[in-house]
């Protein structure tokens, strides 16, 4: 007897949670990228403060300031348009994984230097929103990180990347419809169980 998919799995495969995550994440990153583009020099000054890259040679630091806002806009747009979703979400995971700990480290350094209570620490993290209360920023980033991870791991591709050539039309159709027509699927012996996680990667392969 086939195992009944969990409610969470069915919810994921409906595509709605991923669509919402994409819209939120995409909107936020397009907004933040556009804000950074408004004052790239200020962004350059702020990322220098994280000491993630050497100042000499300057090409690395300057290139990050030139490219990153556009990369945020590109990844945000890809998420909203529903194309290259997994790649865009992966890049956002990477960006957040680099900058969020850097923000935390800088906040801790400020606390050690000035004795300011952690919850009162406020500075411009170069995120595009000006000076912010840092614990709130970290919390927001954690939320965005969770959404991006979901974007990478989600099996749903409804409302987004179309089924790829590696998947035959009936399989692709079954993948989308199965959660909503559980009873009908059981009546058709040739359909078998829902694709397992092992088979998932093929669905988005060209």
């Amino acid at each position, binding site marked *: 007897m086939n195992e009944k998919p969990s409610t969470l799995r069915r919810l994921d495969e409906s595509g709605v949670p991923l669509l919402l995550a994409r819209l939120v994440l995409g909107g936020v990153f397009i907004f933040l990228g556009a804000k950074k583009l408004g004052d790239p020099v200020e962004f350059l000054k702020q990322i220098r403060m994280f000491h993630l890259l050497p100042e000499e*040679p*300057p090409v690395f630091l300057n290139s990050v300031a030139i490219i990153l806002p556009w*990369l945020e*806009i590109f*990844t945000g747009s890809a998420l909203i348009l529903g194309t290259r979703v997994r*790649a865009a979400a*992966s890049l956002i995971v990477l960006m957040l994984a680099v900058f969020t700990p850097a923000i935390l480290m800088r906040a801790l350094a400020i606390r050690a230097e000035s004795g300011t209570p952690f919850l009162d620490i406020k500075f411009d993290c170069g995120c595009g929103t000006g000076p912010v209360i840092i614990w709130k920023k970290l919390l927001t980033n954690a939320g965005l990180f969770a959404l991006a991870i979901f974007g990478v791991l989600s099996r749903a591709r409804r409302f987004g990347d179309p089924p790829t050539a590696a998947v035959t039309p009936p399989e692709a159709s079954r993948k989308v419809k199965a959660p909503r027509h559980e009873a009908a699927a059981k009546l058709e012996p040739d359909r078998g169980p829902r694709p397992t996680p092992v088979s*998932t*990667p093929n669905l*988005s392969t060209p």
Partner: protein
Amino acid sequence: MKTVRKTLADAAMLCVFGATLGFSANQLRESGHIRPLKNYFDKTPQHPVPGVAAPTTASPVSTKGSDDSNAGPSAVTDAAHPDHPYQEISFEAVAALFDDPVQLDQVVFIDARREDVYAQGHIPGAIRCYPYEAERSMEKVMADLEGADKVIVYCGGGDCEDSIFLCRELIDQFEVPYSRVFLYAGGWKEWTKNNMPVE
């Protein structure tokens, strides 16, 4: 595995698009243009005026050695700053210059802050020159600097470093003699704290 490869390929493609558009848009920008190979955060002048020894960050020149006879020992701080090679000028000295109309004629104040912050208030008569876009203000600054004995550079005060970078730009790009460039480290914060006039 195929999914991982496709994801990596797509991510690389997004990065290439981002980089291409980023560099192209940066080239087309008039305001906020970043030169990829320029070190905006170098505190030491690279091309000092011939005949004037340029100090290095490692061995800052004492301000007492300034060849500017008008400066006087009280006009500058005695201790050389470990973080930059420029001669600093104290608030008292700046205020004294500001209150003396004769001396004020020989002084040019340069505000190194952003345009929007400058617009909210600045030292009366100060001209604005953002160190990251110094070339754009070059004509106006050069005209104002003609005949000036002292060029006093300031920014927000506190941990603001833009005035230091502007000092370097003045010496490197504008070829202002090192001895005429004074860094007012207290900056806008100290100026307003002492209830000095603003414009």
